[in-house]
């Protein structure tokens, strides 16, 4: 087995043996289970709570697209924040603890160390997104009697691309910034910049900044146009960010 595979195996085991198997799955599961229920019963809850105060206001009948929208909205904010915070120490935590020294004095290159970490967690995020989407789909079908798959799966896929961009960005920040808190701050700053940039169409059409809006539009059942370029550019940017992280890590002193 090559060093890269051995290290990838260690990363997978680390997910299953530490807090990593709890935090993100718990968040995803919570959103997947509560999103459809909240979408379906919010009008009734409001009516029950507010009583006659809302008698003049007619609340729209919830649809399955409200459920999908809730799922994507939750993932786009708290889900991305969680990714930023969790992966802020992806590389730096191994440097701080000293485990990187034992690993990198063995026949495993520094570039492989960084790339394998990013790749394993990209796969983990993909699996989590798949499981979360399946649960949302199933619960939505139960609650709303109908659940067209295309809108939900395409929206989740677009969100996943954005999640991969943030994973790659945090990989880079965790190489550049030794403190996890510092890297988290930089990640949240990047989130703010991308959110604001998404309001400007030229940037939204050709960068990851446009992915959030498009995921939301897809979830609401709207066919989103100009989807290819932001996705292609985001995936390429993710690869470039991880490549840059690996290149910088190779030159760093441990």
């Amino acid at each position, binding site marked *: 087995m090559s060093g890269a595979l051995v290290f990838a*195996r260690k990363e997978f085991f680390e997910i299953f043996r530490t807090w990593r198997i709890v935090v993100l799955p718990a968040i995803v599961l919570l959103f997947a289970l509560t999103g459809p229920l909240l979408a379906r019963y919010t009008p009734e809850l409001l009516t029950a709570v507010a009583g006659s105060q809302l008698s003049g206001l007619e609340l729209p009948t919830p649809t399955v697209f409200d459920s999908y929208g809730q799922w994507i909205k939750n993932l786009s904010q708290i889900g991305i924040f969680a990714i930023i915070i969790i992966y802020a120490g992806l590389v730096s935590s191994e440097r701080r603890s000293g485990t990187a020294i*034992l690993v990198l*004095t*063995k*026949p495993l290159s520094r570039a492989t160390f960084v790339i394998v970490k990013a790749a394993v967690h990209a796969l983990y995020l993909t699996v989590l997104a798949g499981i979360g989407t399946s649960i949302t789909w199933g619960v939505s079908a139960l609650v709303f009697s109908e659940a067209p798959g295309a809108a939900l799966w395409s929206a989740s896929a677009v969100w996943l691309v954005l999640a991969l961009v943030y994973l790659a960005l945090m990989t880079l920040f965790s190489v550049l910034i030794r403190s996890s808190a510092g890297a988290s701050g930089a990640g949240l700053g990047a989130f703010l910049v991308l959110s604001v940039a998404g309001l400007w169409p030229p940037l939204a059409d050709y960068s990851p900044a446009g992915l959030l809006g498009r995921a939301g539009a897809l979830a609401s059942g709207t066919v989103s146009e100009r989807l290819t370029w932001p996705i292609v550019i985001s995936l390429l940017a993710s690869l470039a960010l991880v490549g840059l992280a690996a290149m910088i890590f190779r030159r760093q002193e*441990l």
Partner: protein
Amino acid sequence: MTAALEVSALTKTYNGKRALDAIDLSVEEGSIFGFLGPNGAGKTTALRLITGLTRPTSGVVRVLGHDVAGAGNAVRAQLGFLPDVPAFYDWMTAPEFMRFAGGLFGVERSVLTQRAGMLLDSAGLGGVTTRIGGYSRGMKQRLGIAQALINAPKLLLLDEPTSALDPIGRKDVLDMIDSLRGRTTIFFSTHILGDVERVCDTVAVLDRGRVLTQAPIPELKARYGTHKISMEVTASADALAAAIAKRPWAGAVTRENIGTIEATVTDVQAAQHDIPRLVADHKAGLIRLEAGEIGLEEVFLDLIGEAHA
């Protein structure tokens, strides 16, 4: 004999301060090399440069004939390394870490299983299946040594391998190092003189980033005098110490407690003849005069003292 490790004019500067100042080292294949120095002398910095974890400001490190600056996996595959404070994945067990470490070296599964078991047994960790997170510092140190040997390295680099161990653990580690004599090259840093004296063939003394000397231990002792004299007088100890220091057979002379003088000597018989006369000349009484073999401690203190003077 060829050199397993060669260091030439190696310098490392941190924020304008020289942690290592143009050090030269040559470690012969098959030898046990002690890298001795007080805390803060630059030992760990040197080992980080040798393992390629850090880049030198200037100078060259050649490991097994290869320049570390351009060395890749092929060179690392022949190294075993124990850092000063070994850190492990707390969620792993010792056998799992050994399999992980061996896997990175590409050790064949059947060999790995057998070797890991043997090394863990010799590290006193055989049958320990709890997670490493619950280990004491000493257990981690012993696991660190075991993992450094998983690839049967040609060059074993140990940074303060005995510092966290109790006397029994320390003896076990030194016995293990001794048992590897001739089978691999061992370079270990320490501030414990006794460890070097017990197992090393050659020693380099490092102080404040400079190598003060490098030599086989018997040669080093001979260079600084093979014997020492310890004496106690009733009066005029300072004047006597000054007079002894001027004698041709005297090396370093130190004053200890009131009336006590210690000196390294090149000719112990001449010293034994001369000293009573010197004591009489200074109108003092001789309480005690002892001659003994010199230890590495005297050499070390002498070297450090000279460097600080």
